């Protein structure tokens, strides 16, 4: 198991390095000039060049990457004299639009996105798995049909419709304060305010994901129920309850861990639509503003990189969890 862990960790580190390189190279060759973008209206070529130097963009891309990596570890210093500024480690770059280190922007946005992701994740797993199990156990009965209806609605409604509907309903029944909406409240200082802030975004995202999970759980439980080892469990004299809890679910839910991990990782990169609808200052909104409004390259670079890292790291977590659950993976 330890050997497996080490091998996986090494592979993950390698993948992250490669991902960061590719993202970096892609952004270096984008047909946009960050130096020009930082220059403003009264711009001359000499100011652009000065800015380019100040941003460290006047050196070859591999040197830029080297500085970027160094900045991640040791922090970074931009410019000279009065106009100079520091970004402490891990420094991802400096946003001229926001006049802030990207790491600061991320540090502000990430808790929001994480809160959104973790809450909806728990909600959709609870809903999806329990509905799926009920639908499988009551196959063909009204419970099954009702869950099918739920699945259809959940899958067909895109979040930009369901989110707006939920928002409208919440506003109509005064469940959301439109002025307070989206204000970040830490769960450590005010857990109730935090939950109240996030409950509708959670429902929006959970609705979309729970539908898929219901379907997936249902078919997995049905498939596992017809396995020979479930018949063995029955022949032993185990009760249906124990068979479901111990024998069927263990095997049926293992594959769900894989997709759940990846879905969660995807959300950590930012839920662009949901964050925008509910005015949540998370990573999704940070990136979409950087892309559409500000052309804020350091921010886009960082959010892209982070999203990739989340997926890679989550993959590792999922694989380790899977090895823990399925002994056949451990030896392989």
């Amino acid at each position, binding site marked *: 198991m330890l050997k497996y862990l080490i091998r996986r960790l090494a592979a993950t580190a390698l993948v992250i390095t490669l991902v960061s390189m590719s993202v970096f190279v892609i952004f270096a060759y984008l047909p946009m000039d960050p130096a020009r973008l930082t220059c403003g209206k009264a711009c001359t070529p000499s100011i652009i060049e000065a800015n380019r130097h100040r941003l460290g963009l006047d050196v070859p891309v591999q040197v830029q990457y080297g500085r970027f990596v160094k900045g991640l570890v040791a922090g970074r210093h931009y410019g000279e004299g009065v106009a100079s500024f520091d970004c402490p480690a891990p420094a991802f770059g400096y946003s001229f639009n926001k006049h802030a280190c990207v790491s600061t922007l991320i540090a502000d946005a990430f808790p929001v996105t994480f809160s959104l992701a973790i809450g909806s994740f728990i909600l959709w797993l609870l809903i999806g798995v329990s509905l799926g199990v009920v639908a499988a156990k009551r196959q063909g009965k009204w419970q099954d049909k009702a869950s099918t209806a739920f699945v259809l609605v959940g899958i067909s409604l895109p979040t930009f419709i369901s989110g707006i509907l939920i928002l409208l309903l919440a506003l109509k029944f005064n469940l959301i304060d439109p002025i307070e909406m989206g204000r970040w409240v830490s769960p450590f200082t005010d857990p109730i305010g935090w939950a109240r802030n996030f409950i509708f975004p959670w429902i929006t995202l959970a609705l979309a994901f729970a539908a898929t999970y219901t379907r997936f759980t249902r078919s997995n439980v049905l498939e596992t129920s017809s396995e*020979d080892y479930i018949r*063995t469990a*029955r022949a*032993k*004299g185990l009760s249906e309850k124990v068979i479901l809890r111990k024998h069927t679910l263990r095997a049926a839910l293992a594959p769900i861990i894989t997709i759940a991990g990846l879905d969660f990782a995807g959300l950590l990169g930012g839920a662009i639509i949901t964050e925008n609808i509910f005015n949540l200052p998370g990573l999704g909104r940070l990136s979409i503003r950087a892309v559409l409004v500000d052309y804020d390259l350091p921010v886009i670079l960082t959010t892209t990189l982070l999203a990739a890292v989340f997926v890679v790291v989550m993959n590792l977590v999922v694989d380790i969890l899977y090895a823990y659950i399925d002994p056949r993976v451990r030896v392989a």
Partner: protein
Amino acid sequence: MSQPFLEVKNLTVSFPTEDGLVRASNDISFTVARGETLAVVGESGSGKSVTSLAVMGLHDRRSAQISGQAILNLESGPIDTISASPDVVRKLRGKSMAMIFQDPMSALHPYYTIGDQISEAWRLYNDGDKKAGIKRATEMLDLVGIPGAAKRVLEYPHQFSGGMRQRVMIAMALVNNPSLLIADEPTTALDVTVQSQILELLKNMQKEFNMAVILITHDLGVVAEVADRVSVMYAGKIVEQAGIDDIYYQPDHPYTIGLLNSIPRVDQLEGRRLIAIPGQPPSLISLPAGCSFRSRCSFSSQVPNNLCATAVPDLDQKISGHFSRCHLTEDQLKKARVSTGAVL
């Protein structure tokens, strides 16, 4: 002979399907006593497994219609597993009656250790913590001849070979000292060399635990090794039932004669071709009138009045303890046996 432990009476299992009612096993009756092995022989789809699953109460009652009786003569009194409540039958499973299955590769849960799975079966009916369960599992593995039981009890099914897994299945089935063991084609999925080891083990275990054993198989070679009595099934019905010697030396049904003819034999002349039974078994949805085996039977023309096509033959006792479902007379059957060379 003592009172049989299991008495199956007029057991019929049918499955409603869109095409009609499938009568998978039809009016089955047999008995098995403790210490006795009854072999149930027949080709795929003849109703062997369906019958035994019905005895164990393992059919989904929403999809299977079951009538008849399967009475277990327990010390506490008889219980009919067909009419008893599912909960009562469940508490007999694994304790009074146990079952092992055809494919040991898929019959064990891949996520739990062997010890976990055996100890789970034991703890269901015995007071004891997990440690005691594992200890008991180790003893059982030792008993069924798995070397290094103390270590292997902590391993997972995928770390065992097919033969070893079947030993594990047997250990698990026997952990609560059941009075009846149903072995559903226990050697079919195994290598030939391993097959006889498993049969040997089953025989020894039967002696050790004084169990009634029902051995389901399509392999008459397996039957000869372990059975005391044989029921031959065809198209959901028992067509012949007799002691082991009678089946081999004076088969009283053309189907049994055909089965025996299809076994390769070392003592027979080189170059002799095996004789296959022509045709296919009938559909269980629309069984033909008369004898189900008629269309494949080469002797039916000897029966007067086209009786084979019109009347279902009864399961008659032709000789003491030897039942057969055939319109042919004993003389005609004797000729049939000799003419096909089934019996030397």
